[in-house]
């Protein structure tokens, strides 16, 4: 299915999500969408306008929403639940663990406003541990798209998967990096650029900064391979095995160090072909208020800071 946006456009990732839901709504009458009083922020309101009979407003009651979705899935429906990631991955963790995953139910959980992108709302609203919590769970699949095109793909793909899926979305509009004809595949990562000096692995909308950083690095004659690790569970073992063990690897994510992509890859390599990794993440602290750009500055995620950190690390070695 052709993705809706052109490379270079600047689009909020939730627009890809919103469009995918409408697409699915037309194609499949089993698709239901549930929201917890945030449908305007999550873009599930687009679906609600088109398919009011299959949109379930759940009010500010996330735990109930997850289990209502469980009930719908038991009756053969394909429910997509949406709210901010921070209000579902933690607050409804037991419902996701003991009902959705334990019974392997066909419920999709879309955690919007992941990472630092919600900005000014501050640390209480920034999901920076969502990947860790969801990745922990047996039967769960975890995806973190880089842009609105990939979000579109992932949502369409999620509807075909029978079983629980968690998708992390972000708030800020970011540059479209994914081609119109790109097709997302579960457990497969995509190279966004090729180079021999280092490997940069990331997930989520931070990819836009990472790609900008590659341009700065190129000016300094450093050529890097960038890999979009949007399929976090399952992850792409084949691609990890293909990275030569002599090459420096940087893993960049808007997530706590504990339990994020860096930690997942560290565990994998430590049991297979140990190698030195540099993990670039939020560390072990909460977020705070500020514009997303200011936060990227403060937490070390702007393209300039990323490029400098990578350059310094490569020249030190």
């Amino acid at each position: 299915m052709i993705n809706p946006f052109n490379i270079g456009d600047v689009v909020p990732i939730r627009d890809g999500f919103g469009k995918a839901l409408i697409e699915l709504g037309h194609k499949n009458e089993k698709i239901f969408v549930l929201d917890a009083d945030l449908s305007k922020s999550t873009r599930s309101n687009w679906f609600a306008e088109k398919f009011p009979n299959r949109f379930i407003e759940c009010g500010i009651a996330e735990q109930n929403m997850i289990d209502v979705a469980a009930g719908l899935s038991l009756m053969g429906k394909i429910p997509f639940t949406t709210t901010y990631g921070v209000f579902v991955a933690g607050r409804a963790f037991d419902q996701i663990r003991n009902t959705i995953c334990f019974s392997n139910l066909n419920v999709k959980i879309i955690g919007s406003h992941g990472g630092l992108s919600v900005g000014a709302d501050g640390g209480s609203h920034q999901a920076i541990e969502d990947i860790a919590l969801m990745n922990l769970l047996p039967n769960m699949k975890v995806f973190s798209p880089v842009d609105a095109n990939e979000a579109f793909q992932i949502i369409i793909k999620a509807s075909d998967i029978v079983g629980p899926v968690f998708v992390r979305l972000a708030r800020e509009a970011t540059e479209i990096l994914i081609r119109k004809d790109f097709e997302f595949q579960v457990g497969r990562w995509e190279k966004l650029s090729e180079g021999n000096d280092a490997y940069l692995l990331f997930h989520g909308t931070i990819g836009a900064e990472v790609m900008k950083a590659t341009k700065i690095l190129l000016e300094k004659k450093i050529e890097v391979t960038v890999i979009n690790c949007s399929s976090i569970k399952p992850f792409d073992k084949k691609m990890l095995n293909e990275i030569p063990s002599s090459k420096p690897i940087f893993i960049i994510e808007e997530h706590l160090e504990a339990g994020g992509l860096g930690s997942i890859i560290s565990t994998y390599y430590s049991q297979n072909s140990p190698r030195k990794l540099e993990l670039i993440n939020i560390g072990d602290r909460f977020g705070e208020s500020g514009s997303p750009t200011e936060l990227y500055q403060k937490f070390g995620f702007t393209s300039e800071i990323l490029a400098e950190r990578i350059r310094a690390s490569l020249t030190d070695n």
Partner: protein
Amino acid sequence: MKNFIELENIAKQIRRKTLEIIFNAGSGHPGGSLSSVDIGTSLFFYLMNHDPNNPNWKDRDRFILSKGHAAPLLYVILQMSGYFPENWLSTFRKINSPLQGHPNSLKCPGIEVSTGSLGQGLSIACGMALSLKKDNMKSIVYTLHGDGELNEGQIWEAVMFAAHYKLNNLIAFIDKNDLQIDGSTDEVMSMKSIEEKFSAFNWNVLTCDGHSITDIVNKTIEAKKSIKPSVIIAKTIKGKGVSFMENVAGWHGKSPSKIELQLALEELE
């Protein structure tokens, strides 16, 4: 259709078997299983449309054991209904058994959804009942909750939801045995009137004697006529049927000894 004397005999047999499988396992939850026996019997052997030979029959009524710790009761009922052979019962709580300590829908036929973490069944039932309405299907969704379970905030989220969406195809039973683990429901977290709380949320509220099959059946038939979701608050006795277990919080989650089992079975002759 079975008459009420037959149902009472079935209930007595269920009590015996429930204690036997808990004894055989060496652990489990007798108190809250015994208090729910007559509700379970009325549902599975009289009220509900279901087909043990075709557990996934799409027009069946649904039952969710939200108080999943009453698993031994559910297993005995499912077995006596014909969902699986009798020899499974001796595997309860043992390695590789389909009869897990709490109901697991992936391992045992007749279980709609896994439970064990309290407070979730009503929400799941809401999703099912809503789906049935969207599809114009006539099945009823039944749930069974403990009174202690009502401490969970999520229950009240679901109570709001069911009333808002007018889910009159949902009937929730509360096993009001006035006990939970740490003591009486009054001591642990006093709720005062459960009736008034459900009424305030715009539910159809009924009460019954939870050990009178006639009363349970009549109130359920009445509930089915409601235009609102219904709750049937069933006054019960925790440990019902075994004198030394009745109204004793300590029998919530422990297996009887061999002698205690013997005494209990004599009382249930």
